[in-house]
């Protein structure tokens, strides 16, 4: 190739060298961390949805224990209680459970050898409450008492608190793990950016000593590394979205498992990842360039 130059066709070379193998590893590391962060975000959303599902399910139902009086059979007492409750405002449905069902519920506590027919098993009424304006325990108890029924309403409030506490804990743990991974991703992006820029220390020096303003140099590196990290973030986010979509598709209506139900809209949560990675890299590159320049002054 001739070393003579066609002046008319000459175009200025970029101030910074083209991407090289070091940049490849930076892209890989950032993409992997973004993938993990996005996947965690999806898991957090799914666990939050699951937790909300559990509590909604419990708050929408109540169980009534009916103890028959001497002059009444258990079946008729349960039927009367169900009929009474069905008329209470805020109750969507009240259904007396069959004797077998009540026995089946109590059997695990007493063991298979026990003859349940000898025991006065109370009958149960399953109540489904209206979601808009659910009836409270007091109203239902009053209604039952007014009909001369010996019954008690269990609105699950005793263990609802435990469930809510458990759901809230799961939610916070998920968010904490996400925060941890997102912070680690940010730190790695910043660290990898610093390493990449430090490797081009000589370019910073030459530009500086040739009279380039500090902001000009910082902008060059900022733009380069922000673009690189944003592309890596895009790869990571796309990978996590594909993984989320697969889990959703494989699991049918409720996602991979009802414990972690993923919705299609959850996949949108990965969209800020490229921007966030780009921003972190831009800030890291700017700070690193400034610190290198300060070292030259």
């Amino acid at each position: 190739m001739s070393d003579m130059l066609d002046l008319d066709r000459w175009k200025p070379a970029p101030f910074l060298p083209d991407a090289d193998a070091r940049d490849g590893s930076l892209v890989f590391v950032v993409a992997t961390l973004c993938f993990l962060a996005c996947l965690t975000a999806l898991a957090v959303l799914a666990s939050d949805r699951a937790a909300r599902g559990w509590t909604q399910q419990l708050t929408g139902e109540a169980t009534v224990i009916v103890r028959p009086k001497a002059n009444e059979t258990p079946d008729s007492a349960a039927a009367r209680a169900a009929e009474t409750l069905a008329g209470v405002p805020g109750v969507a449905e009240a259904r007396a459970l069959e004797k077998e069902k009540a026995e089946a519920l109590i059997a695990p506590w007493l063991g298979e050898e026990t003859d349940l027919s000898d025991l006065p098993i109370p009958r149960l009424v399953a109540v489904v409450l209206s979601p808009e304006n659910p009836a409270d325990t007091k109203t239902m108890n009053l209604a039952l008492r007014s009909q001369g029924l010996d019954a008690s309403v269990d609105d699950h409030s005793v263990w609802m608190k435990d469930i809510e506490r458990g759901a809230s804990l799961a939610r916070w743990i998920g968010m904490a793990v996400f925060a941890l991974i997102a912070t680690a991703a940010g730190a790695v992006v910043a660290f990898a950016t610093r390493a990449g820029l430090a490797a081009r220390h000589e370019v910073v020096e030459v530009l500086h000593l040739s009279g380039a303003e500090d902001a000009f140099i910082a902008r060059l590196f900022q733009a380069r590394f922000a673009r690189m990290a944003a592309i890596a973030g895009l790869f990571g986010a796309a990978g996590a979205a594909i993984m989320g979509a697969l889990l959703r598709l494989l699991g049918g209506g409720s996602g991979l498992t009802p414990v972690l139900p993923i919705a299609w809209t959850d996949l949108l949560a990965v969209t800020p990842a490229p921007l966030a990675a780009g921003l972190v890299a831009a800030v890291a590159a700017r700070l690193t360039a400034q610190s290198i320049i300060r070292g030259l002054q």
Partner: protein
Amino acid sequence: MSRNPLPEGAQDIDPATVRFDDVSMRYGRAPETLRDLSFSLEPGSFHFVTGASGAGKSSLLKLIYLAAKPSKGLVHLFGQDVSAVPLRDQPFLRRRIGVVFQEFRLLEHMSAFDNVALPLRIEGRKPDSYRQDVAELLAWVGLRHRMHAMPATLAGGEKQRLAIARAVVNRPDILLADEPTGNVDHEMALRILRLFVELNRLGTTILIATHDQDLVARSGMPVLHLDGGQLTRLGSEP
């Protein structure tokens, strides 16, 4: 785009291009590399800085091209106390100083032409305004046939001349060169010296750090001699 950081009338107050007033310098907590230097370089002058390795020649140049700060005393450039120039204005001061580094510091990803054009691009000039000037400058340093070459493919003397072309492309007021003949043969050293003399005739103040006594003797130019960080001679080489 370029800004002149000098206060109005500064050059009238102090016409020297460079003036050191009782300047000392040290790296970190190490002993002083330079001690109590006082001298001035008039515009259009040509000086050599001589001394043994470690005498402080490169450190003296660093103080002038603003890559180091004095631990004591004042450095004046173009009539202005450098310590009073805000950091944001220092780049504009640097543009008035051309530097030929001992290790060249050429950008390896740029062609010879791009390396020379670099200071002009940093100033924000459009390619059409300097394309021809850069080509002529490369021809002047004998690299017309190597404009497209990458630095890695150039010989030592070619790199040196390329570094000189880059240092003078924006017509600096002062040119500093650190051991510019350290990596070339005698013939090339004389050729490089002739380039400096030509630049000096055009009005550029020249300061060359060297331990090449033969070069200094041939030039007949005044010498700042450093010994253990102190200025021991200021004047013509005997």
